[in-house]
Each structure stands twice: as C-alpha cells, then as structure tokens.
C-alpha cells in the first residue's frame, strides 16, 4: 500500500496547526476571562505590547501572571517594559487584559500609571461573542 499521500497530508496538517499555535501573540494569564466585544479586531501587530493582567478580585499581575504588582511594582514594570520595547525600536502600548467582572477602578489605575509614563495607546483584550 502506498502511504506517501497520507504522510504528506498529515505533515501539511501538522505544520498548519503548529504555525497556528505559534500565532498566539502574547502570553496569557489563565485567571483572567476577557470581556466580550463584537467589534474588536484581531491582534495583528504584537509589537510593543506591555501586557498587564487584572484578575477578578482586582489584583494586578504581569504578562504571564507569575508576579503580583502593587502600585510601585506596576510603575516599575511599565517603565522596564517600555525601555525594553524602545530599545527594540518598537512603540510601547498598553495591552490591558482586565477580567470582565473586575471593576473599572483597577483598569483606571493601570491606565493612569501607563499614561504617566507617556504611553498613549491602550488595547483592551476582548473575545468575540459565541455565535
């Protein structure tokens, strides 16, 4: 039996899903459930994203959710990431992953901290509604 067409197909599918998996651009804190927004756009440009997570209880975490940030920690984190992206000649932007049930107070806090560092653009992470 000639198996080569099947192997070709399997490899094609394998490469497709492999590439797809790598396209997930920013790391994700699994404790954050993003709100829903139907008019959102895909995350095409991943350059310069300073990712801040806000969990349902309002605690603020860094990109991969490994470190909790207090007010000072948040400022330091944003300064550090901003310098990192500016070194790479990328325009730093705030990527805010606020949990849908967290209150606005904490989003405001993060935006204010970013604004104080001269960051003028914020991307809110949202998911498309289920069809």
């Amino acid at each position: 039996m000639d198996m080569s067409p099947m192997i070709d197909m399997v490899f094609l599918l394998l490469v497709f899903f492999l590439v797809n998996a790598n396209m997930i651009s920013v790391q994700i804190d699994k404790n954050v459930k993003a709100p829903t927004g139907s008019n959102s756009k895909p995350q095409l440009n991943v350059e310069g994203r300073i990712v801040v997570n806000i969990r349902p209880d309002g605690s603020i975490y860094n990109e991969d959710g490994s470190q909790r940030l207090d007010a000072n920690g948040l400022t330091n984190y944003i300064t550090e990431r901003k310098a990192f992206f500016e070194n790479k000649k990328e325009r730093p932007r705030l990527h805010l992953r606020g949990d849908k049930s967290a209150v606005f107070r904490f989003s405001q806090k993060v935006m204010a901290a970013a604004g104080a560092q001269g960051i003028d653009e914020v991307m809110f992470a949202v998911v498309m509604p289920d069809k």
Partner: protein
Amino acid sequence: MDISSLIDVSFLLLFYFLVSSSLIETENDLKMNIPSSAPPTSEGPSIEPLYITIRPNGDIYEGDQLLDRYIGFEVPLLSSRLEFYNASAKATGEEPTVQIEVSMAAENQSFMNVLNALAGEQISQISVLGVQ
C-alpha cells in the same frame, strides 16, 4: 524502510496541536487612546460632545436618560444613539466626540460594551473619566 513509527509520532503531534489550538480562545483588540495630560491645542470641537455615563451597576445613561441596562453585552439603544450622533456630526463636518463617565465600581464588561459600540461606529475621539 519501516515508516509506521514516524506516522505514529506525526499523528500524536497533529492531535496535540489540533486540540491545543481549539482549546485556547483567541483574544482580539479594542483600541483606545489615553488622553495626554497636555492641554488641547485647538480651540475644541464646536459640536456638543455626547455624554455617556456608566453607573455602578453597569447601566448606561445619556445624561439622566437610561439607554441600556447591563444585561450581557448587547447595547442596542446606545448603538442606535451613537449612530444618530455620528451621522449628525458627519453632516456638520465635525469629528464626533464622546465623553464617558465610568463609575469606578462598574464591571469591565459594561465599559467594554460602550467601547465596543464606539468601535462599531468608528468614533475615536473618546475621553474617559472615572468617578467614585
């Protein structure tokens, strides 16, 4: 040459990536500009901005008038109000400007509902004020 083990491994990897890619929910962007602290240089818009208020329970008001209650993520009345405002702003050649007053105690989802409606109308002149 025996290639069955190669096929086994390939299938394993295939299923791994297949399952992992469908499990992770992809996230999208809603963009907003953080207003700079510098005072505006122009004399300001001549069209009256639209004032939207988000109450602590997530209900959306225009002034004192209730537009949408906070049930899920549908905001039909706000959307139609924005559409009307956008059209009237465009008719006078002005940039539509929206001021949102968000209660600090409102949930993120209710704020996203408003941002989403604004994105749907491609209104980018937004200012956000958090109130206690």
